């Protein structure tokens, strides 16, 4: 019977992290969509040249986020890595992290007319094959045109 206890703990953790992680992901995506729509009028572009207008101020803005990969995602990622398949659980995680970082950068540049030269960097946090978390950072130059 004692041999079954680690099984029970593992399964409980796996099921809990699947349902809780899926719920949190859904909520986060809904929040991202809502904020992206609200900030749609502030363009963030990888272009380096501003419009042919007088610029009164420029500013470096950045947004940074770290999102944890839950137990379920870690297990599926390890399994997928054995077969050389797409780690689709990590794709959703990366998407959330990058979009959240861009949103935070935009929120930092409140009042700007545009953000130019935008760069997005991301990296995995965790030893070996484990995805403990994903870090994403977005940075750019906020431009304030003369009115």
């Amino acid at each position, binding site marked *: *019977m004692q*041999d*079954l206890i*680690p*099984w029970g703990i*593992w*399964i409980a953790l796996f099921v809990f992290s*699947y349902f809780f992680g*899926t719920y949190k992901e859904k909520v986060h*995506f809904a929040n991202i*969509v809502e904020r*992206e*729509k609200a900030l*749609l*009028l502030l*363009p963030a572009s990888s272009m380096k040249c501003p419009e042919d207008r007088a610029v009164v101020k420029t500013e470096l803005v950045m947004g940074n986020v770290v999102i944890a990969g839950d137990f*379920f*995602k*870690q*297990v*599926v990622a*390890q*399994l*997928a890595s*054995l*077969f050389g*398949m*797409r780690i*689709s*659980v990590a*794709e*959703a995680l*990366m*998407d959330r992290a990058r979009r959240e970082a861009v949103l935070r950068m935009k929120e930092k540049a409140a009042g700007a007319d*545009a953000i130019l030269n935008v760069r997005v960097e991301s990296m995995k946090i965790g030893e070996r*094959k484990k995805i403990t978390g994903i870090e994403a950072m977005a940075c750019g130059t906020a431009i304030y045109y003369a009115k």
Partner: protein
Amino acid sequence: MNFEPRYSEKNVNVPSHNQLWVFFRLSLGLLGIVFGVYLVLGFAAEKIAERLPPKFEAALAGGIISRLDHDDFPRTREYLQKVLAALVASTKDLPEFSYKVSVHDNGAVNAVALPAGNIVVFRGLLTELKSENEAAMILAHELGHYAHRDHLRGLGRGLVLLSIFTALGLSGDMPGFIAPSVQTFDLKHSRDQESAADHFAIDLFARTYGHAGGTLNVFKTLDRQGKGVKTPSFFSTHPDTIWRMQALASHLKLKKYPQGAVRRLPGAGVLPFPGDQKTNKGQPHNSE
């Protein structure tokens, strides 16, 4: 160039399928591969084990035995060695080893057959035994494992399983659900080996003592002892005790062995013998 704000709800970067389905698909694939490799290599290990010469086995066993070669109850061991010698003398089906029994001061209700004819009986099991017939049945059961080469098969399969997981780099937390699955599969194999050893034991007992009286008592004792901690039979290495007794009872009927007297244990009738002195652990015992 004009900026036209437009928002697309469609997200091509996030997969739309259920991740749980991905998990099941990958798990089944991995389990299939592991089972396949395990079956093939396990079969190969078994075949090699069956053909391993006793001399080679004795050389291999040296390392394992030296650690366990100590004797906690010398007089009890001496008595068990006599019982074992009588059993070994009445069969020719055993590999040519110098069979030795040693008694360990451990509460486990178990006995193990180590390579090269070294049987270890734990104190926990001895205290449950009520007669010489029961002690002889335990030893005969372990001799059955030598006759069928089970002790080496177990080692071979264990090694194969360990090799697979090491090769996959899955010695961390992830295979927690896979490793027991494979082991559970192997337990069925183990239960078959235990049943075969039971049958061998009863035949050997009848050949040595001229009857099969009191042989089933050992299972009754084990059943009583195991009532507290009931493990589902599928997860157990040994078959369910009731099922074991039924199988042996029908074997007894089939063979028509006479029912003889139950021999009492010498002295106070308990094992290990009261006042039996322990020697220091690690000292090699004198073989008979």
